[in-house]
């Protein structure tokens, strides 16, 4: 038998990252934030911090969109209301994807949108990032090629007739014989 939720359960710290289309539109025409705020209120929680990123390209198409917006929320919600909160986010069509993480207490909130914007600007200005260390590779060793039979040997130029007669005369005369 499931135990009933404890009424006085303390709220925990959660981080919720939302992926939204570049122009988020809800079904009834209201702003998405009013929906999310209402959802958080229904879950007896509160939004402690909010970090909105600008429009940025996605690595792959999500829901037919190649660009999107990221919003990171720092929430304080009791743990027994988390399921209700995620179900509410799933029903929201303007939320393409969401990621909810529980954080340890005392985790500082860092605005990565600023860092991302600075990185984008430095990239647009053409500033190179810190160069990577070169990959160590073994030095290339040149192998000596063994002579093969296919390599044609150098051919001597054919002797002329005059040279041939001279050599023949020299041999027949026998002057160079050392007897």
């Amino acid at each position, binding site marked *: 038998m499931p135990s009933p939720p404890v009424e006085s359960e303390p709220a925990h710290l959660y981080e919720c990252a939302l992926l939204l289309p570049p122009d988020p539109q809800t079904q009834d025409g209201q702003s998405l934030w009013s929906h999310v705020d209402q959802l958080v209120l229904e879950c007896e929680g509160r939004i402690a911090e909010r970090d909105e990123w600008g429009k940025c390209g996605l690595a792959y198409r999500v829901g037919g969109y190649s660009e999107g917006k990221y919003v990171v929320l720092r929430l304080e919600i009791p743990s027994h209301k988390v399921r209700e909160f995620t179900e509410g986010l799933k029903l929201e069509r303007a939320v393409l*994807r969401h990621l909810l993480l529980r954080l*340890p207490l005392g985790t*500082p909130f860092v605005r990565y949108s600023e*860092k991302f914007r600075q*990185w984008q600007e430095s990239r647009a200005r053409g500033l190179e990032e810190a160069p990577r260390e070169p990959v160590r590779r073994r030095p290339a060793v040149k192998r000596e090629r063994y002579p093969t039979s296919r390599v044609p040997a150098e051919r001597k130029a054919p002797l002329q007739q005059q040279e041939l007669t001279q050599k023949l005369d020299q041999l027949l005369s026998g002057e160079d014989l050392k007897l």
Partner: protein
Amino acid sequence: MVPPSPPTLGSSFDYKDYPRLRRYVDYFGNIRKRRANKLSLKEQKDLRRAVERARYLGMLAYRK
């Protein structure tokens, strides 16, 4: 040794830190080996978790 970043206590990498994560991922979207990244085992595990979360949110590609 990578200095631990503040966003998530006990973890060296954060999935929202795209400019930092992309340095540890190659052209094809694979996470580089630990020896190439010069990370400890714990840092490499944190990196993997962060990259998987970033992939889910569309920041990084699964495969190019």
